[in-house]
């Protein structure tokens, strides 16, 4: 294959664009796709201070590299989830990349902040690891952005992530979540103060295979291994199904997602859109008040549950045998 731009030997084919690119022109192509997305959805400007959630994987490190290349004011934020050697290697990758580009990286740890790791939280609450992990990441990313004075929180959700989420929400007719799915989640003010920082996803037009190719071409040393806790994860199965459809009919994923944004998203509203949103009585995060009792957000409820179960005395099991 030849590069669409210079006709030199191609390194990456992008079938949904009916194109292939050499390394330098593929990098330009990705920069152009991200710049177009930022502009189209009015995500942010060069005046904004951006906090980018960094996992040490290809998407977040590629995103950091792209935003710096496009001239934005970017700081990374890494949350150590305490998933054994995987988290240790992820943190090393994040710190090494930050050092390489001389970027600022804020590092926090779930264990130090809250006294548990993701595996411990899953064991204590009985929830699947990805669920507790996602809840804690969303909470901590927002908290860090608020405390450190950032105007926008940026995440590395790519085209495949958003397509898999949309696919799952449609399969289950999860209309509440369909009402929330957008490349931009606006700032939320509760009781006269910012409770949720504006959140954006500039990679929604870039496929996961393309962020990986970008990282390889830019020499970004990302963590290739998969999180050991996601085995059998539904999101992953949806991605595999969509990859099969994309292989048979290039462009399917992008048509599905951007068709939804353009033609369908406006027909769904989040279930709590009209519900009274108040500050959590414990931490101040926004939560919905459904009854007369004090409102407590899902993060605080989950943390409480973990602490109660950890502190509960171990009861000896009653024998069923007759004495």
């Amino acid at each position, binding site marked *: 294959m030849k590069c669409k731009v210079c006709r030199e030997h191609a390194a*990456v084919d992008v079938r949904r664009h009916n194109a292939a690119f050499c390394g330098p022109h593929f990098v330009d192509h990705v920069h152009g796709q991200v710049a177009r997305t930022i502009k189209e959805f009015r995500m942010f400007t060069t005046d904004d201070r951006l906090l980018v959630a960094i996992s040490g994987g290809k998407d977040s490190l590629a995103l950091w590299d792209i935003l710096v290349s496009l001239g934005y004011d970017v700081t990374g934020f890494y949350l150590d989830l305490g998933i054994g050697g995987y988290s240790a290697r992820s943190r090393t990758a994040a710190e090494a990349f930050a050092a390489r580009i001389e970027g600022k990286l804020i590092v926090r740890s779930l264990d130090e902040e809250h006294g548990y790791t993701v595996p411990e939280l899953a064991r204590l609450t009985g929830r699947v690891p990805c669920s507790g992990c996602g809840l804690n990441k969303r909470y901590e990313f927002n908290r860090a952005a608020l405390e450190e004075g950032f105007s926008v929180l940026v995440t590395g959700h790519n085209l495949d992530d958003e397509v898999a989420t949309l696919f799952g929400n449609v399969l289950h007719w999860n209309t509440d979540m369909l009402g929330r799915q957008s490349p931009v989640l606006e700032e939320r003010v509760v009781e006269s103060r910012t409770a949720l920082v504006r959140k954006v996803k500039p990679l929604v037009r870039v496929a*996961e295979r393309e962020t990986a190719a970008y990282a390889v071409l830019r020499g970004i040393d990302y963590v290739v291994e998969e999180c050991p806790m996601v085995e059998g994860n539904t999101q992953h199965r949806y991605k*595999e199904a969509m990859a099969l459809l994309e292989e048979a009919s290039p462009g399917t994923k992008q048509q599905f997602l951007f068709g939804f944004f353009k033609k369908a998203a406006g027909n769904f509203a989040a279930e709590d859109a009209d519900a009274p949103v108040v500050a959590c009585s414990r931490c101040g995060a926004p939560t919905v008040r459904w009854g007369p009792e004090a409102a407590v957000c899902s993060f605080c409820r989950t943390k409480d549950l973990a602490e109660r179960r950890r502190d509960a005395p171990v009861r000896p099991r009653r024998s069923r045998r007759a004495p």
Partner: protein
Amino acid sequence: MKLRNPDRVVDVDGPCSVADMLRRLEVVPEAVLVIRGGTLLTRDEVLADADEIEVRPVLSGGER
């Protein structure tokens, strides 16, 4: 040939194209990168019998 996640090594007879190799391994091309000596390969590239190739998955799971 080295396959990642989980890491394993398999032998595929060459010469063959990247697309042929992936078909033999029953791997969906949209879900992987194919790398030879640090260089990305498109699906029409021809692989020699002695080439050492990495097939790297790109689809990640989990709630992000």
